């Protein structure tokens, strides 16, 4: 695991975080529920809580789907390249590329989905929430915070590396007694073929 320079994190008086969706996206409840599941994965292992609110302009975390240039100097580039980006704490901006073919059903369990040109939304959401909490990219292949995701792949379960990283920043969830599996070891490098 790694952190942003200076190890920024949400301050102690802001551990019950709110999130909201850009109303211009008019997202369905099904899409919003994907993010709820993604936040729950991080809440399970930290003392943080995440509550959905309607006030986009004042929420701690603001989520939006955009195409091309969208005001932060980091334009999106179309399908199957840069999928999303998120800012370090306590900024809370979470942007996703609106031109991707997002799959929202959780198809494929924790494995492959049937079409390589589709992107599993929950996989990307779990990764970007890691950034929102202060984690950088990990060099541990198979971890959630690894920078790339193979096409047609669904990867949503936090690994030991991800949990250790976020718990370094915030401590553990006193109500969590589960364990995390280490990331899958792979002898062959990810080649992008699926």
């Amino acid at each position, binding site marked *: 695991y790694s952190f942003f320079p200076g190890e920024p994190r949400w301050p102690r008086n802001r551990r019950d975080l709110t999130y909201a969706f850009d109303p211009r996206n008019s997202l369905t409840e099904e899409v919003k529920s994907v993010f709820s599941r993604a936040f729950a994965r991080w809440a399970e292992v930290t003392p943080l809580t995440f509550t959905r609110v309607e006030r986009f302009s004042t929420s701690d975390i603001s989520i939006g789907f955009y195409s091309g240039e969208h005001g932060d100097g980091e334009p999106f580039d179309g399908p199957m390249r840069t999928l999303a980006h998120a800012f370090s704490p306590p900024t809370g901006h979470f942007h996703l590329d609106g031109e991707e073919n997002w*799959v929202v059903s959780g198809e494929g369990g924790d494995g492959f989905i049937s079409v390589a*040109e589709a992107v599993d939304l929950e996989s990307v959401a779990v990764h970007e929430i890691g950034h929102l909490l202060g984690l950088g*990219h990990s060099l541990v292949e198979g971890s959630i915070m690894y920078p790339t995701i193979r096409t047609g792949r669904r990867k949503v379960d936090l690994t030991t590396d991800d949990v250790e990283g976020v718990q370094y920043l915030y401590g553990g969830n006193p109500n969590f007694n589960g364990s995390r599996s280490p990331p899958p070891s792979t002898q062959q490098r990810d080649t992008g073929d699926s």
Partner: protein
Amino acid sequence: SFYPNSSAIPPELLRNATGNPWNTFLNFTGCHAGKKYDGLYKLKQYFKHFGYIPETDLSGNFTDDFDDILKNAVEMYQRNFQLNVTGVLDELTLKHVVIPRCGNPDVVNGTSTMHSGRRTFEVSLAGRGQHFHTVKH
């Protein structure tokens, strides 16, 4: 573009998604420092976007020269993704480069953030093509 499952995606959208411009980087397989290759500046832009080339090193001047700036970027990328550190655009490196990814940079101000939590020290065994890794907790 939200779909309940991948089979619901219209075929024409799938065709659009298949034409990933990053795939053109695969044409640089085998390219190495000291030469000039048409269109290489686009790969420099890629590495700059993800932090492997600091702003100060290029000052917006992207050429097609495979210079030391690009070689350093390739080597840092190969270290981050635990590939063989050769500085050459080999097939495995470029197949990694074209994988869809998060837009956040891997390198900030010339320092790889991917090594900031667990401190990894790498000792290169010169001329042997081998690397020894040790992790300090």
